């Protein structure tokens, strides 16, 4: 086979892969849509989007309000970002510019190991370790609440934020760093005041991908947030996120009931949110690399 044909073949292979990914994505979307739509024969879309209660088991009047779990999901996600973003950027800044080569050599694999911890283990730690601590510090019953979930999700989003932010910092032209140091700035000032702003779009993309991970995470929040079906009131109260709701209820629900279809509707919303978040991250990221080039 000559070289040209070979290249053509390789190209076809990747094209095929690309198309396959798109097909799978569209397939999932259609599947969710197909299973979600029947729910709206009995319940209005307005009911779904505005009712503040999710109670499919009510004997008289089952309600299917998305809001409590949407707010719950947003709470733990935003909470996790509040913890993970500053910590992640700080760690990335430290690793890329301040740490000695030896520290870096040890720390980088550690960050990768952190990414590989199964979510069920993180959730377990939330129950046996973080829960009691929160409970003691705040005087709440068992410490299984939005705060607990936020912290655990932060831990899970950190590796993504750290390693992608570090990459972004690494692609900042060295001339900026030299200019800053030559003006008498120290390493921290240089990385925080010059390199982080110069890498802002890459870091933003890193945070969005971390956020995408946090929104979709299921097992950890399921274990650590208490799963109360009420409308979330504070970070110290139990919450039940969209992912937890689907995971818990889909196992028990009778097939092809309104409740069943409603869970797919929730899944569809979740799919759309993660899709948009990841898309935004991607757009920001590519804009960033184009500007750099």
């Amino acid at each position, binding site marked *: 086979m000559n070289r040209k044909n070979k290249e053509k073949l390789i190209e076809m292979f990747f094209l095929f892969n690309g198309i396959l990914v798109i097909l799978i994505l569209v397939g999932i979307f259609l599947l969710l849509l197909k299973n979600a739509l029947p729910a709206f024969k009995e319940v209005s879309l307005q009911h779904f989007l505005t009712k503040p209660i999710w109670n499919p088991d009510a004997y008289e009047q089952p309600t299917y309000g998305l809001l409590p779990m949407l707010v719950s999901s947003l709470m733990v996600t935003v909470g996790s970002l509040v913890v993970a973003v500053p910590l992640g950027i700080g760690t990335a800044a430290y690793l890329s510019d301040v740490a000695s080569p030896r520290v870096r050599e040890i720390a980088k694999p550690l960050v990768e190991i952190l990414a590989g911890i199964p979510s069920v283990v993180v959730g377990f730690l939330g129950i046996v370790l973080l829960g009691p601590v929160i409970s003691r510090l705040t005087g709440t019953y068992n410490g299984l609440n939005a705060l607990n979930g936020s912290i655990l999700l932060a831990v899970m989003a950190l590796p993504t934020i750290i390693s992608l932010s570090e990459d972004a910092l690494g692609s900042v032209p060295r001339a900026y*760093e030299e200019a800053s140091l030559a003006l008498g700035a120290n390493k921290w000032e240089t990385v925080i005041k010059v390199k982080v702003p110069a890498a802002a779009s890459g870091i933003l993309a890193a945070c969005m991908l971390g956020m995408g991970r946090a929104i979709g995470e299921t097992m950890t929040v399921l274990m650590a947030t208490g799963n109360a079906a009420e409308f979330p009131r504070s970070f110290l109260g139990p919450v039940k996120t969209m992912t937890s709701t689907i995971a818990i209820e889909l196992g028990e629900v009778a097939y092809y009931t309104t409740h069943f279809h409603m869970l797919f509707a929730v899944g569809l919303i979740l799919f759309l949110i993660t899709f948009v978040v990841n898309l935004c991250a991607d757009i920001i990221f590519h804009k960033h690399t184009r500007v750099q080039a």
Partner: protein
Amino acid sequence: MDKKIRMKAKDVDFYYGPVQVLKRIDLDIFENNVTAIIGPSGCGKSTFIRLLNRMHELVSNARLEGSITLDGKDIMAPEVDPVEIRRKVGMVFQKPNPFPKSIYENIAYGLEVNGVRDRDFIEQKVVESLKKSALWEEVKTRLHESALRLSGGQQQRLCIARCLAIEPEVVLFDEPCASLDPISTHKVEALILELKKDYTIVIVTHNMQQAARVSDHTGFFYMGELVEFDKTEVIFTRPRDKRTEDYITGRFG
């Protein structure tokens, strides 16, 4: 040589890992003089002037022997903070490298990291240093625009302004005109002559005429050695070493 010596390199050997790039360099830098460093590509000119403000420390496997002093004090001594040295010995790089920030912020930055908090003082310094670097007239109406929108020559003068704002005592220029057109080059040269009154200047250049025009002393580096160092007029009219003569007359490149 009646002038006061500001900086002095004595018996300097310098290595990148196992490779020796500078050999037994002895060189004096005089106050309110322009000292030019010339020599063929790769002979160690940049390496040498980066030692003068300890920028060589950014390279992890760099190793220095011998001493470099500023006003008689060893700048490499363990108790000396490189940040302190870089404040006193400023640097302008070959390629203009303004930060991707506004013109104003580019200059304010150096002041801020050196602990200046007074907004009025910063503002005044911005104006003053832009005037000193002969850029003020061109940018006074757009101080808050991105510095990256300036032309190459303007960017380089901004880098000079940024450097001057923190009031260094010595200013190092590493081929400051290498990426500039003749008009910008002329402006930067005029500026260097002007700055000589207040600062001590070291300039690396590939341009013989430039060295002859702006400098008082010239050092010729060749393959990591300082072949000859003398008053510029001596170097260019009666060089002692054959290699210096060949280089300045363009007989080898």
